[in-house]
């Protein structure tokens, strides 16, 4: 019960690059403040995202971790304006200072693909099956730059090469179904970086792929981050992925942040019971039993008051039901658990 996460997952390699450890240079490229998303449905208003703050700096890779329904994807779909029209978005989301919440469709269109790009989980369904790969990349280029068709086509071949697709000239004339899963995801990345965006959102990019291919894709993302100084948000429910490539991690639960910090401390000494629960529910060498988190994901129409995790938390007290928990600094982390200090004490006792 008191095993640390680093027993379970190989510690991320520190010193891999200097850029990974250094704090974000200058002002954050993507800033969310009290970001909220609400969906009106037959069952009532679903409060999918209930006040998220976060910063991502240039060249930084922020991992967003959470289970299905935590609101992690919806947050970023919302910033990009890709949610259904009925969704209500409040708060602030700025990219390079430009406010996206409430921005006109024209502005959003210009931001999307140029300043902010997104890649999705299933690259097969994310690519139009009847258009050639090259054409799809060309579309990305020509939507934002004044480039001729031929020049754009050449650029797309270049991009395919950058992401590591062999024989890019031939491949550009092929269709999505002729590519393997990993290749398709590389194509998505190529498309996303075509206009050198400031922010790249990767929504579960490796979930649909084989483990071996996962590593390759993560490497591509690393290269993008290093060579183009793009701020990357990596959304995933897979802790292994986060451990491997992220600089900082933000753990989300029920539409709010549970914990935040650099990747090593988060894995080494997580402060929030939810994070700890996640870490200990992973199979690992030497661990004889899995201990899943009891209970079920919350109902987002009517979430539990106060800290939404309290109904599943072994350490919950009455105070946990009052007031929405905010992230407060706690050592080298920021935590939303009001009992973080107590938990540490409990541990050092046993």
């Amino acid at each position: 019960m008191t095993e640390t996460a680093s027993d379970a997952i190989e510690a991320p390699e520190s010193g891999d690059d200097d850029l990974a450890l250094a704090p974000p240079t200058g002002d954050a490229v993507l800033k969310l403040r009290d970001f909220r998303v609400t969906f009106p449905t037959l069952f009532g208003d679903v409060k999918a995202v209930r006040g998220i703050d976060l910063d991502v700096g240039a060249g930084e890779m922020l991992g967003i971790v959470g289970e299905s329904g935590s609101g992690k994807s919806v947050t970023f779909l919302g910033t990009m304006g890709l949610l259904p029209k009925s969704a209500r978005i409040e708060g602030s989301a700025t990219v390079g200072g430009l406010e996206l919440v409430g921005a006109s469709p024209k502005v959003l269109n210009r931001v999307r693909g140029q300043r902010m790009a997104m890649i999705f989980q299933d690259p097969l369904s994310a690519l139009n099956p009847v258009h050639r790969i090259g054409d799809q990349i060309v579309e990305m280029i020509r939507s934002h730059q004044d480039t001729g068709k031929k020049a754009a086509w050449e650029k797309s071949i270049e991009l395919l090469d950058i992401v590591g697709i062999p024989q890019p000239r031939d491949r550009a004339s092929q269709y999505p179904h002729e590519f393997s899963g990993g290749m398709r995801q590389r194509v998505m990345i190529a498309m996303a970086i075509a206009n050198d965006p400031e922010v790249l959102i990767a929504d579960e990019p490796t979930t649909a792929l084989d483990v071996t291919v996962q590593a390759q894709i993560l490497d591509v993302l690393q290269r993008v981050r290093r060579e183009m100084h793009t701020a990357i948000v990596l959304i995933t429910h897979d802790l292994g992925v986060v451990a491997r490539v992220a600089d900082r991690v933000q753990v989300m639960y029920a539409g709010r942040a549970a914990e935040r910090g650099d990747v090593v401390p988060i894995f080494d000494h997580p402060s929030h019971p939810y994070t700890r629960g996640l870490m200990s529910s992973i199979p690992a060498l030497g661990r004889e039993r899995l201990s899943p988190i009891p209970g079920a994901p919350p109902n987002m129409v009517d979430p539990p008051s106060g800290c939404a995790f309290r109904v599943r938390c072994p350490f919950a007290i009455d105070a946990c039901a009052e007031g929405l928990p905010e992230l407060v600094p706690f050592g080298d982390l920021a935590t939303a658990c009001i009992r973080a200090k107590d938990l540490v004490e409990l541990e050092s006792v046993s």
Partner: protein
Amino acid sequence: MTELMNPSAVAVEAPPGAAPTGDAEGLSRKSLSPRQMAWRRYRSHGPAMIATVVLVLMVIFVLLAPITARYGVNEAVFKTEGGVSNRYLSPRAEAWFGTDDIGRDLYSRLIYGTRVSLAIGLAAAIIGVVVGTVMGAFAGLRGGWFDDILMRVTDIFLAFPFLVALLVTRNMLGEISWLEPIIGERTSIRFIILLLALFGWMGVARVVRGQVLALKEREFIEASRAMGAGNRRIIIRHLLPNSIGPILVAMTFSVVAAIIAESTLGFFGFGPQPGADTTSLGLLVGTSKENVLTGNWWMVLFPCLTLLLVALTINLVGDGLRDATDPKLQRG
């Protein structure tokens, strides 16, 4: 809930985490079975609900024929006497929908006729669905030569213009004298029911086959087999319950198709001639042909409107059923 809310709108808007299960505090949503969800969706389909009500009322009305009809099927409105003819009277107090060529009340005849046609349609559809389901299920499950032949045969039949195939088959069957004791003679009601069923089963068979083909690769079927279930058990316990939706939809549309087919045949004089004591929509609609240019508009309008009403309500019900049981809309 809004009146005309289309279920697909709900599916599109449903975000992740909208309807989870569980019973602890804050986890209050009760989970609904697929059947309950389908019923909910059906209820939210405005036109389908209206149509269902109308259809049920119509069926009841027609079943209570001796009470709701004002005259007997063959009864003249009043006897011709003293120069006052009872033929071709326009709608009036004694005959709400007018009278026909021998003075019978069209309104009453329509009620009896609709009853007969509904029965024909239902019977043909039921037989067609039963046969079609069995054939389709076996074809889908076993594949092989059975499936190939089934597909070929249905392809050929369905390739011909429907009316052509219907007419030719009708005549052909009518000529084969040794079949007569079984299927009845050409102008009997039994014959037409079987004829319509003959065409009906093919559509259902294809639908069921499609369903089976899609389902049989699913893991729960594999698991069943691993537990030793044979074909028959798999069909009955697993495939059919999961295919109820499409089968119901196919059956509903079969009923309409049968009723319209019967009317069409009747229109051209190839329909059932059940004798003097009953009539059918087909027959009534058939008389409209000769009345177009004679100015007896009621003979045309009322049978056509009745047919239209029947077809429309059943179609709407079928549409509602289809939307309610569409597997693509299983979320939310």
